[in-house]
């Protein structure tokens, strides 16, 4: 049996968990955790298709993963810096309190 569906299922579930975290956690930092999970789910897909995909000697998947990781690192750094700024302003990282845009 080809392990590709297994990995795809894994990544789907991982993505769903990440999304759940983003939608339910109230701490802004833990939102980042959810985002990292979703990014990893995408990375797993890339690797899975590279490893068990159709094209031989193709490096697109790993290449994408490399960039994805780099950008994820950057995103995490900026995101955390922004959260620190917000925290300095409001003494809180609770997203429900950051509702000054409400209508």
């Amino acid at each position, binding site marked *: 049996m080809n392990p590709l569906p297994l990995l795809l299922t894994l990544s789907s579930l991982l993505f769903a968990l990440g999304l759940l975290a983003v939608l339910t956690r109230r701490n802004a*930092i833990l939102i980042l*955790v959810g985002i990292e999970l979703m990014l990893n789910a995408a990375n797993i897909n890339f690797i899975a298709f590279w490893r068990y995909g*159709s094209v031989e000697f193709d490096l697109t998947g790993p290449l994408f993963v490399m960039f994805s990781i780099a950008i994820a690192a*950057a995103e995490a750094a900026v995101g955390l810096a922004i*959260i620190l700024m917000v925290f300095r302003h409001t003494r809180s990282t609770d997203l429900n309190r950051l509702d000054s845009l409400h209508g």
Partner: protein
Amino acid sequence: MVPLLLLSPLILLAALGAVWKARPVHAALLLALALALVAVLYLSVGAEFIGLVQFMVYVGGVAILIVFALLITRPGDEAAEVARRPRSLALGLVCVAPVLGILLYAVSKGLPVAAFEDANPKLPVQALGTELFENAVPAVLTVGVLLTAVLIGAALFAREPGPKSELPADR
């Protein structure tokens, strides 16, 4: 195949913990565990180089960064989080369920491409390097610029404001 079958539930369990744990620090540590397990997954499928990168950047960088950020900011109100959980979880699941359904439906529908047992058993690091620094040079350079900008920007954001640039009091 066997390592995959072993690793997948572990990854999912760790991720579930990261989502579920009320204490932010626990959640962050479980995230680190999940990311480390994904790195092991990469190693087991032959993409050793990616696995190592994943390990170093995610586990050694991002996860630790998150832990530090949690330590700097005030710990959240866990009791309130737990008390609100049923409602927020219900709302979250309402949104997540369709997404998951679609993804699983797509997986079960079968693949648009033919699958091979061993299309690329090993990741050729030299070829990857050649690819990166020959064909993908613009992208590499762009990412380099991006990372530099992030370095400076994050440092500026996170800097303790001096007495002069003290921002106005909270609302």
